[in-house]
């Protein structure tokens, strides 16, 4: 590892004109030793932790759109909204992912589950418009698939790539202050990511920020 860093540093010294960034890309021997020592889960958890502040959160900040603005775009069609605000991997038929921020009223909550959720009314008509997935078990791969710097080709196989999605979801869930007690009727504000396959589907949002009681 030290060797890799050293040679990375040397490469930087030798290329003064190029923008330099040390990418942890150890030689194959070192990599197989590392993977022998670590499970996919552990390796992906480290991968996510290393990038959470520096890469994941900036993507979220840069792509956040208000719930109302996104809804207005979605009225013109999913592809229009996707082109304006969406993120998705390249390839045929990959669904759009959106980063959305907003606040609404909790209409229903299941907080004692491993897959804790809250239903939230966003437009004041009394019926739920979005689901907030609080975890720790979170469905889907929205957070992973919204990240432009994450490319499937860079991972060993679908299993490792799935563990990466799990690790992203775990990290998001762990970073939230979980609401407790009776939250129905209370106001909640959030920023989070979701996958949208059809314009009419209910967004199942993975929050990266959450606070009870109105806008932070």
């Amino acid at each position, binding site marked *: 590892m030290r060797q890799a860093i050293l040679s990375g540093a040397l490469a930087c010294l030798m290329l003064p004109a190029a923008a330099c960034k040390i990418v942890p890309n150890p030689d194959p021997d070192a990599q197989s030793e590392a993977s022998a020592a670590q499970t996919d889960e552990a390796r992906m958890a480290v991968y996510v932790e290393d990038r959470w502040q520096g890469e994941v959160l900036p993507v979220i900040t840069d792509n956040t759109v208000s719930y109302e603005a996104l809804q207005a775009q979605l009225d013109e069609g999913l592809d229009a909204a996707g082109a304006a605000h969406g993120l998705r*991997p390249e390839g045929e038929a990959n669904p759009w992912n959106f980063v959305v921020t907003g606040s609404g009223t909790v209409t229903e909550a299941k907080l004692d589950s491993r897959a804790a959720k809250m239903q939230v009314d966003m437009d004041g008509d009394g019926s739920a418009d979005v689901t907030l997935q609080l975890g720790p078990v979170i469905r889907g*791969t929205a957070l992973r698939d919204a990240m432009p710097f994450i490319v499937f080709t860079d991972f060993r196989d*679908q299993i490792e790539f799935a563990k990466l999605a799990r690790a992203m979801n775990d990290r998001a869930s762990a970073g939230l202050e979980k609401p407790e007690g009776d939250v129905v009727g209370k106001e909640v504000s959030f920023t989070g990511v979701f996958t949208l396959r059809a314009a009419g589907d209910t967004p199942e949002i993975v929050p990266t920020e959450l606070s009870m009681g109105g806008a932070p």
Partner: protein
Amino acid sequence: MSITRRLFVSGLAVTAVLPTVRAAHAQDKGLIAIITPSHDNPFFKAEAVGAEARAQELGYETIVLVHDDDPNKQSEMFDTAIARGASAIILDNAGADATVAPVQRAKDAGIPSFLIDREIKESGIAVSQIVSNNYQGAQLGAEEFVSLMGEEGPYVELLGREADTNAGIRSAGYHDIIDQFPDLEMVAQQSANWSQTEGYEKMETILQANPGIKGVICGNDTMAMGAWAALEAAGRTEVIVVGFDGSNDVRDSILNGGIKATVLQPAYRQAQLAVEQADQYLETGSTGQPEKQLMDCVLITSENAGDLETFALSS
């Protein structure tokens, strides 16, 4: 089986005996070799048919070969494709590790490979690896299974072939959902190697040891068909069976109230897409896509089974 063998034999015959026949039949763009597992499983047949049809539409000659999940046979087929001077290879491979070497050999011979359905454990050797989003699909199937089970009861999981990444990823997707429900208890988990016959036999044995099971979740449709036949033979048609693939056999079973659900992999489109990327790569030097690509799967129940035909949904 007979169709498979005939195709295989005729492929060999063309290679061995009539190498010049190609010139007589050849269209402008050269030969595409299409190599898949046995067409006994309609999934692989649909891939081969889809790829062949698209290749011919685009002006290629085709040769269709079957490796029967035997890496040695697959290796020989790569030699055949290389000897024939194929322009490209469309491959559903015989093992994530064992396939790296032949794909590299083809690459060294200047022949690009375009993989479908199954990945290999290296990137940078094949030009494209287009696979179903098995994790997403398995989660869809598992959610339907959990709901059909009423979130409780003893169940069985039939796994696919261990050397195949798709077996592991589907199982992971199933358990990421099912394990959230503590009242769902897995009483047996065995590999039936994607096979209908093994699915039948394993199900028979498991049923004897665990007569109280309420559901069976399977890594593919052929195993689901085998399991369902065993359950039917035992008079246990109330047991909930869920598969994965979206075959016409399982579609018919769903429509007749047998198997309850499956997950469609867009196999036909996937094979066609691989040929289109091969064509674009041969014409322009690039597919315009990253090497590894995922295609989403669709849940099939009695509600939409009627729209399913040969691994594609009409609507």
